[in-house]
């Protein structure tokens, strides 16, 4: 196990986690500064608070393969 954590983490069926202080440009070209130790950038395109994730990806049709 590496001691180094990645700065950018793509979460399966979730957002992209961004660690540290960054400027994020949204689809409209506006630039937003991160304000948290870790921020979640929307990846599904449905967030109401883009560029940040608001959990909306969970409301989509079930893509998860369920093993029961």
């Amino acid at each position, binding site marked *: 196990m590496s001691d180094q954590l990645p700065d950018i983490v793509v979460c399966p069926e979730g957002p992209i986690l961004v660690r540290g202080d960054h400027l994020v440009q949204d689809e409209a070209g506006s630039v937003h500064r991160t304000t948290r*130790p870790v921020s979640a950038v929307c990846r599904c395109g449905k967030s109401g608070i883009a560029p940040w994730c608001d959990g909306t990806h969970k409301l989509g049709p079930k893509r998860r393969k369920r093993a029961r």
Partner: protein
Amino acid sequence: MLVPKARGGLSARVFAELRSGVLEPSLCSAEPDSDADAHLVLWTLYEQHYRGFEDVDPRLEWHPTLIGLRGALEEWFTDLLVGRYRPPARTDPFAESFFAYVEDHDGPSVATFVQREADREQVLELLRVRSLYQLHEADPTTWAIPRLPVRPQVALMALQFDEYGSGSPHRQHAHLFARGMDACHLDPAYGAYVDDAPAEALAQNNAMSMFGLHRRWRGAAVGHLAAFEAVSSLPSRQMAQGLRRLGMPEEIAAYYLEHVEADAVHEQLAVRDICQPLVEQEPDLTEDVFLGAFTCLDLEARTARTLLGGWAA
């Protein structure tokens, strides 16, 4: 804060002895009249480890009689929680299994009711009940920090730093809730509404304190946290929509809107960076992580049923 109003024989006796400072050793084996009586006593004993009471000598925090009584009540509460627990169908791969476990847990939603139908008085009652936790939001999880290995500890510190405002008082979550309460003309003083909290809400607070204060429950503490965060973002948006529908102050909507954004991060951190590395390093804690998650969801469902039942919703 003053010691709350008693809700039965045990709480009446404990509160009288707390105020007098004279604790009879027989208190350790005294029995509660009801679950409400038991949970209120447990809540009060835990509260001594947070902010305490103006009418109780702070030196009683670790009094052996009170710790003995707390232990007896915790044994009862633990048996109750373990007895209710329903394990997941699978725990591997961890993150996928955990999110599925949380998503599959059915329970009534107070947030959906607030979004669509609640009136102003019902929302104010909800805020009073929630204030018991939300005015010291994140505190119970802080107890778990020194009990974790390095990877989950570092991630929990990042999450807690955000809960505590990332260095800015005006962003601290408990403080945001206090400002929201004040704007709604509710008393933002810590613990002001404990007498209004149903036993189910006391139980929610007690579970978090018990998991946090016992090293052996560190897995349940972070599992509870992860489930709490995983069911927060979308309901927080519903809460904000309901508050705006009712024309309630923007300060209280702002508290919930902050949680839409923050908890979309925190759920990922809690599941992938706290719980997952913990169970990889200490696989024996996997069951406890899920027990913590179940307890979070189950106790919230019980509180929701009580509140919605009271509103005949």
